[in-house]
């Protein structure tokens, strides 16, 4: 697929520079600005607005929109289109995200850049369609089987949904890996002011193409970056793509421990070794704090409100917000655990990221869950009440 990034056209399609829109809409704007030219999806609450808006805007921006028969096919389509040279995306919610897991593993193994936006809702199963949740944090990490690394980001506002969608495309192109944007029904349906960034205010990264001739090209041979260059289907390069363990030429090698070890370690290392540059957090620390709130996504909003209320009462409290979820910001969490005695973790689930947080803290601080499920966000009071009870 040859798609020319036409900024003027994209901005015309997006409309006004400042808009009062939902997170689901700003995700679409971010995708368009990042150069997304192919979308395949299946509508599901609370992600339907992304598909609806994409269906209206993407064809006008010169891209292709396909409504698929289900989420398995949606994931397959964006992988195929990515190999044809497009920047691709799908959007879904918990039940659909579950169906995508097999092909997300295929995208990891075949090093296919693509973006999946999961607007999380209350589960398990079809659960509560219109209620937000943070129930897929671990599914994003381990939903697909086998050893792998994944990149996942989580926005706490409409503006950040746009910004992180662009970032998701850039990371997926740079590291040739699926990137998950873990938003949720609260942020997806929240309306806020959103400002479209100007040219120069954001970066656009494109995957590396082959630098050698067709006779010398080895499709899965990586340089020191550990990320191989990616030839586009139809350009005449010989490319063999398989989910089976493969050698650098792409051909299956299904019983060699060495080949498997070499491949899978490289897939893990290309992300793991770049953990520092992938990690994004927001830190707001006060000298002498003994307690902290650690949050992410939608629940970071009432958490930030609780922090402000506590500080108005002259209580010292640290605040750490995770923006990158996977790879997990171990160092940043450990640093916080060194500063304080107790870390409170409000999550819209019965305990997911609290586990890697505990692991990263290595016992240096007590980690206390503040769980909430079934829809509405935590209230700041609920978080403050939990902090009053000395666990």
């Amino acid at each position: 697929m040859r798609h020319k990034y036409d900024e003027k056209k994209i901005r015309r399609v997006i409309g006004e520079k400042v808009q009062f829109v939902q997170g689901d809409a700003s995700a679409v704007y971010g995708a368009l600005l990042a150069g997304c030219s192919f979308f395949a999806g299946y509508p599901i609450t609370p992600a339907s607005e992304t598909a609806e808006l994409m269906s209206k805007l993407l064809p006008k921006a010169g891209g292709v929109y396909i409504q698929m028969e289900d989420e398995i096919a949606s994931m397959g389509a964006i992988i195929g289109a990515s190999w044809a040279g497009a920047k691709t995306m799908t959007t879904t919610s918990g039940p659909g995200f579950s169906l995508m897991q097999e092909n997300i593993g295929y995208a990891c193994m075949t090093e296919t850049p693509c973006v999946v936006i999961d607007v999380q809702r209350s589960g398990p199963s079809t659960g509560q369609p219109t209620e937000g949740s943070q129930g897929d944090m671990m599914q994003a990490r381990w939903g697909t089987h086998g050893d792998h690394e994944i990149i996942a980001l989580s926005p706490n506002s409409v503006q950040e949904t746009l910004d992180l969608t662009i970032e998701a495309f850039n990371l997926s192109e740079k590291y040739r890996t699926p990137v998950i944007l873990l938003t949720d029904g609260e942020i997806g349906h929240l309306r806020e002011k959103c400002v479209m960034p100007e040219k120069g205010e954001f970066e656009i990264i494109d995957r590396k193409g082959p630098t050698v001739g067709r006779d010398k090209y080895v499709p899965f041979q990586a340089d020191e970056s550990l990320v191989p260059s990616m030839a586009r289907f139809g350009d005449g390069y010989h490319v063999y793509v398989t989910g089976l363990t493969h050698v650098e030429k792409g051909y299956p090698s299904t019983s060699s421990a060495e080949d498997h070890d070499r491949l899978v370690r490289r897939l893990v290392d290309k992300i793991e070794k770049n953990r520092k540059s992938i990690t994004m957090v927001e830190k707001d620390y006060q000298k002498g704090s003994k307690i902290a709130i650690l949050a992410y996504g939608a629940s970071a909003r009432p958490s930030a409100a609780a922090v402000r209320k506590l500080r108005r009462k002259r209580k010292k409290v640290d605040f750490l917000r995770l923006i990158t979820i996977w790879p997990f910001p171990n160092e940043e969490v450990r640093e916080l655990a060194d500063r304080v005695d107790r870390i409170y973790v409000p999550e819209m689930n019965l305990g997911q990221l609290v586990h890697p947080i505990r692991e990263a803290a290595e016992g240096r601080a007590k980690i206390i869950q503040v769980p909430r499920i079934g829809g509405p966000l935590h209230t700041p009071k609920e978080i403050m009440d939990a902090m009053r009870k000395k666990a």
Partner: protein
Amino acid sequence: MNVRFCGFGGQGIVMAGYITGSAAVRDGKKATQTQSYGSESRGGACKSDVAISEEEIYELESEEVDLLVAMSQQAYERYIKTLRKGGILAFDEDLVTPKKTAHKLYKIKATDLAHKKFGREIVANMIMLGYITSISGFVSKDSMIQTILDNVPKGTEKMNEDAFELGHRLGSKVK
């Protein structure tokens, strides 16, 4: 300033919230709007919260609101406890029978007027928006009208604007 619109699905509760938040941003303020509704598209309980501030907004769903707009008895009963002491309750008097509470009460026959004057009950939300814009003054009238005109279906602009103006006039009489 926190506003909560509540009623049932199909009354334009979310639209009212959207218009209000969008108009506040047009006024140069910060605003957030959230919505909560069931899977059914019409008839279920529905609410939309709008927060307006000069500063960053962290509380998306306020524990206490300054203005409660109630368009059904069920919604009134569910949310009246979230209205702060001395806050404003604006309600459709044919649909809500309020109890005696420590709030400022403003009643209007929004749905009935929408039916009688415009032949369309759907503009009851616009009448209500005009009414609360007038009694509370938290968003400018100009921004509200401009936002309405930008967002209602083509061909219905005048009816919606007229409905807003009617509510606004009635509001300025009781202020």
